């Protein structure tokens, strides 16, 4: 099983329920390795890749990442520079970490209706025919998540 992201409890009581749209924004996603599905659960901190993808289990949605598949170059070939030099006009490194957002409007409203505390769990499920990564290997390497609402 791959590494699971679980948040601390997030108080949503102060969020006005009348928003038109709510997005979970996943920052800093790694896409250098295998393809994977990231399954999103609300208030299901014990979710694993064996947890059913049904609303009663807290499942909200998934997003997919089509992975680079590893590095075919020499050591260092796929290392993303931490910063770019001034006047480095080349395009950003191809494997610069990605941002992906998922709209979770109805699920967020339900959390607020149910008391307003949210624990977010994201379960990455590697989608590859190759040997699976070790349990402590994390294909997402998620940097941070934000929940954004729009009136």
């Amino acid at each position, binding site marked *: 099983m791959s590494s699971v992201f679980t948040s601390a409890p997030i108080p949503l009581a102060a969020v006005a329920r009348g928003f038109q749209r709510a997005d979970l924004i996943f920052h800093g*996603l790694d*896409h250098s390795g*295998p*393809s994977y*599905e990231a399954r999103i659960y609300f208030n299901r901190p014990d979710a694993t890749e064996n947890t059913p993808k049904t609303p009663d289990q807290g499942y909200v949605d*998934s*997003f*997919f*990442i*089509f*992975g*680079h*598949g*590893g*590095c*075919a*170059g020499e050591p260092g*070939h796929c290392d993303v520079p931490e910063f770019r030099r001034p006047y480095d006009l080349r*395009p*950003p490194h*191809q494997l*610069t970490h*990605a*941002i*992906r*957002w*998922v*709209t979770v409007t109805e699920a967020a409203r339900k959390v607020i209706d149910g008391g307003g505390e949210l624990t977010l769990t994201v379960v990455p*499920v590697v*989608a*590859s*025919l*190759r040997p699976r990564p070790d349990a402590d290997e994390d294909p997402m390497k998620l940097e941070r998540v934000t929940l954004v609402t729009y009136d």
Partner: protein
Amino acid sequence: MASTSPVPPQAVLRNRTKIDALTADQLAALRQAFTAVYGINDDRGFAFWAGIHGLPLPISCQHHNLLFLPWHRAYLYFFEQALMDQVTGATLPWWDYFAAAQPAIPDPYARPSVNGAPNPLYRGPIQGIPPEQWARLGAGPMPPFTNRTPGQLGPFPSQDDVTQALDAPTFTDFSNFVEGVHDNVHVWVGGTMSEIPVAAYDPIFWAHHCMIDRLWYLWQLGHPGADPPASMLGTALAPFRMTVTDTLSINALGYEYAAAAIAVPRAGG
């Protein structure tokens, strides 16, 4: 003796058709064109074009950034030109994800053989990848042909996923959602399609990307003037001699995604 002059081709937009609507002649032309490029071992051949997306290095494709849609539109354009160089009239079809009651590889791409011969749309040869590059991926022996495992690695996207993308108000929002659909289909097809280094060696790759390109076109129709951010319009789409701006009009690239294209004869003609 009267001499015959070559007739210049007419400037008619080619229509990319959905796979299920290909005529027998169109399908035959497509198969003939793929067979032809499989057999060419230079920069007109299939391995060259598939290799631009993946291995051999450099991997030039753009994913998970805003160049995803423009880069792949350019890629389809140049590969389609390479097909037409071999078979006039061969155009890339698009995969209507929801044509079948259940998610399925379209029949013309799912049949291992046609009329007793191998079907060139069933699988593609994986050639031209330096063994040391393949070995570094740790993926075992390099397969000689592509393979698929539909449905084994993940579910198929829903019509709602596509609708959500088409309803997106900005290019950035649309790109995020439609790339999600795209990534999902790569995973659903599975096998070599689920791996960037070799995905484009599978012939279904090109029909899949035509669908994504068509969705962008449909989104453009519904959101006139909603272009990619101005700061990226001049960005080059390496290795192609095109910028983002060059990809914004499919008609300027000589094709369309019409549901029907019927030649209307003049009365009395």
